[in-house]
């Protein structure tokens, strides 16, 4: 996720990363990481540090980028497939979760 300031509202962090910030800590896929008391905005760097997220700061453009969390030590933190919405060729958004009830073979490819 790309940020243009080092802190952000809790809802934005939750929406982008899938981590929910609760009294017991940051929680995802049944795992909770304890956190200091939360305010309305969170310090992205501190949170990223606790969740093992790589943080890159681009001075020149005043941007930060947070990589995925590494709490589980693996790319997948859960066998539950994450939901996502991506556009088709016509730009129409398609929500992957709408295929619930079907077996899906998801194939990533590229023109390069």
């Amino acid at each position, binding site marked *: 996720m790309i940020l243009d300031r080092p802190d952000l509202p809790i809802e934005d962090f939750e929406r982008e990363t899938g981590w929910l910030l609760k009294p017991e800590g940051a929680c995802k896929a049944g795992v909770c990481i304890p956190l200091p008391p939360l305010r309305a905005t969170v310090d992205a760097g501190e949170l990223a540090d606790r969740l093992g997220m790589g943080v890159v700061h681009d001075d020149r453009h005043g941007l930060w980028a947070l990589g995925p969390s590494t709490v589980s030590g693996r790319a997948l933190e859960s066998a539950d497939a994450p939901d996502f919405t991506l556009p088709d060729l016509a730009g129409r958004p398609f929500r992957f979760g709408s295929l619930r009830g079907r077996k899906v073979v998801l194939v990533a490819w590229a*023109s390069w």
Partner: protein
Amino acid sequence: MWQELRAELHDDGLEVVTVALDSAGPEAARPWIERARPEHPALIDEHHRLDELFGIVNVPSGVWIDEAGVIVRPPEPAFAARPEWDEGIDDDATGYQRRTLALEEQLLVEDEKYVAAVRDWARHGADSRYALTPEEVLARSRPRSRAESEAAAHFELGIHLRRQGHAADAVEHFRAAHGLQPDNWTYRCQAWSFVDPHLGPSAEYDTDWASEVERTGVEAYYPPLDMP
């Protein structure tokens, strides 16, 4: 390729979703999608979100998700047919293109094995010997270190800056991503594609596709499928 398999297995409850990891956008993917005439969703992932979500580092990669939304096979090489890599080669092909083609022809492509597995899963579902338990899925998911997470952050910044018109600054981030996660072919190929569609030597990068494949070994590019 996938459309044929999808048509065959659709009534067994199987759907195919193809996703182009193409930061150049829909126009880059359009010729292939239009030729395939898919009846299944064919999506465009310009920001490479799937790479992070599933741990995809090369293409083509396949992930199986069952009816309950549970992953039963994490990313692995996924071919429905052997690609016709020589299609783009004509009398004007450069030495580099021919070198690339010679390497491509040595890559391990297990299309028959993969298709047979998909057919078995379509037919038998959870009872298929190809459907893994959640524990097996997590155990097979590729390790992710802090360095790799940082690579993802650099790559995302590179894509973002490139879209903003800062191509040279983007290159710096792509180079950092490559250094932090050298075995991520997606990061390399996407970055190289911006300076050379043939992924050849460039002023911006220290290496190219053919050189890297030769260095790391053709047999390592698409690892053998771990299935019965």
